[in-house]
């Protein structure tokens, strides 16, 4: 492979993306405009799920085993049918599962929980006799529903447990919402931002499809095939240039969401990893673009056909998917964008570590699916049109 050829073709493709107004719009402006529009439209969520995964770390040490109130609390929670309780022996495992999205919240039952409730039941009107305690609650910051729905449910169950009317202001038990990183009120933007990064890259499918069909139509592909340029050199140049575009898109989206208030509390390695995921994802979009160019007989047809791949990825794998039915969300697991968005959500909102199991699974899914799609794209295009 001659770097001189790859560099020359990459440079040419970059110039095309910068100089053709339609391409420039599609690659950079359209995703940003669309993201802003969708951001405001879908910010409210709309998840239809009615059960929540709750992790419980039970450290309660009742003085009288007959009055184990933590078990009563867990049973009451389970009986609500709204919460699926998973008990943990230690906080570390529970936190790890929370950071990977396996549970949506963790509540820690302190050692004096039963004592506290018993003290209240013995002297409900004498607050001086109460043993006050606090239940830390850790919420999945990547789930709009979890942050909004779980605290009231838990509060309701606690109130029931101590036979206290919700209107009664005082109680020995305090539900304290903690967080993996810091306690803050999440905006709609925080929840849709991870999907925005994925969203921007999806439109590469259309651009790649158009680029290849245009070059075929105007004889440029033939002209390049006449030169000693190898198919590997040509494809490498395309992949490099579109990965560059994906990188710029991700940076633009980041700047935009940052300006709008998106402030994930993560370090530079996490940002670098997020950009790596977007770059990997761009490979699948180049692959889908090649498949589009194989099917399409003209650049005009390529624009329309690209939506065969754009729409599923857009609706099932980006922030749009969070507003769809659970069936659609299951279907989302068959598109690469789902795993990119899931990984970015875990990284930015749940504070998951790069090396956590959930992130590694997402990375593997993205890598394998993108490599496979790119390979299929190259094989199909090469077979029918030659590169």
């Amino acid at each position, binding site marked *: 492979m*001659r770097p*001189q*050829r790859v*560099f*020359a*073709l990459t*440079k*040419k493709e970059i*110039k*095309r993306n910068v*100089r*053709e107004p339609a391409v420039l719009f599609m690659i950079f402006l359209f995703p940003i405009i669309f993201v802003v529009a969708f951001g405001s439209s879908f910010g409210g969520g709309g998840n239809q799920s009615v059960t929540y995964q709750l992790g419980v770390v039970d450290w309660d040490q009742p003085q009288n085993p007959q009055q184990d109130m933590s078990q009563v609390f867990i049973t009451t929670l389970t009986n609500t049918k709204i919460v699926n309780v998973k008990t943990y022996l230690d906080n570390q495992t529970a936190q790890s599962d929370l950071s990977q999205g396996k549970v949506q919240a963790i509540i820690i039952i302190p050692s004096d929980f039963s004592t506290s409730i018993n003290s209240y039941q013995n002297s409900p009107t004498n607050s001086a006799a109460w043993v006050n305690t606090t239940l830390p609650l850790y919420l999945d910051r990547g789930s709009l529903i979890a942050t909004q729905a779980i605290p009231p449910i838990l509060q309701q169950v606690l109130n029931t447990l101590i036979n206290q009317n919700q209107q009664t202001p005082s109680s020995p038990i305090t539900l304290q919402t903690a967080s993996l990183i810091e306690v803050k009120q999440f905006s709609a933007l925080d929840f849709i931002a991870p999907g925005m990064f994925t969203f921007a890259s999806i439109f590469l499918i259309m651009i790649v499809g158009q680029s290849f069909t245009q070059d075929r139509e*105007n*004889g*440029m592909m*033939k*002209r*390049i*095939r*006449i*030169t*000693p*340029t190898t198919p590997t050199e040509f494809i490498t140049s395309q992949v490099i240039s579109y990965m560059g575009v994906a990188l710029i898109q991700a940076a633009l989206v980041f700047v935009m969401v940052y300006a709008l208030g998106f402030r994930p509390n993560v370090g530079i390695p996490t940002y670098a990893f997020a950009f790596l995921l977007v770059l990997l994802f761009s490979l699948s979009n180049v692959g889908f673009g090649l498949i589009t160019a194989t099917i399409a007989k003209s650049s005009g047809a390529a624009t329309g056909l690209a939506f065969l791949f754009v729409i599923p990825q857009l609706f099932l794998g980006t922030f749009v998917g969070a507003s769809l039915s659970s069936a659609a969300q299951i279907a989302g697991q068959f598109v690469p964008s789902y795993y990119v968005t899931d990984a970015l959500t875990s990284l930015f909102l749940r504070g998951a570590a790069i090396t956590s199991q959930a992130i590694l699974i997402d990375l593997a899914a993205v890598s394998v699916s993108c490599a496979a799609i790119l390979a299929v794209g190259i094989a199909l295009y090469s077979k029918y049109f030659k590169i």
Partner: protein
Amino acid sequence: MKESAILMENLVKKYEDATALDGISLQIEKGELFGLLGPNGAGKTTIINILCGLVKPTSGSATVCGYDVQEQTNKVKDLIGVCLQETAVYPYLTGTENIDLFGNLYTMNKDTLKARRDMLLQKMGLEEEAKRKVSKYSGGMKRRLSLILALIQDPNVAFLDEPTVAMDPQSRHAVWDFVKELKKQDKTIILTTHYMEEAEELCDRVGIIDHGKLIALGTPKDLVSEAGVKNLEEVFIKLTGRNMREGL
């Protein structure tokens, strides 16, 4: 006899419903300027596509400078330059950028590329337009640029497929002068054209192709003389029963 630059032996190319080439055998010498004449669909472009390694023949063989076009395609690509029938240039690049791109695809040295680029731009009269985007060029200017792209790497063998189509008479004569200069440099040139005066003016020998067959071969003067007519156009009409431009 001079060394053979191109050798075709019984080339046949069949598509599903048509025979594009029907047993073409032809030898073109090194340094020869050879004209391939015939109406559209006669098989001229198919011959060029086979010699460039773009299309595989159904049967038969062909070599360029001794290299088999099917087995040693990369060697052949290093030696040839092709001016396509389509005006294939990138509209969003400038003339200079188009030329530099193709020079780099031939892995030309930077200084050599610049010197050759400037020389070709001057010869083709595109110096002043070189920094403009090609989308602003006229059809004739694009054709001239397309010719530069074909010749940027100073190929030993040049295939010029209708190089002067859509050019004004002045540009056409500039191209003719340039082609004559190439010939003086001992380059082998295969020219396809619909313009009989172009073939008569430039070509050492011409081959007339019709329905995939080589129906006449010789110098323009000999063909005219043998047919007992005034010019190549009349030779064509006599041999095929059609006017050259009817096929257009």
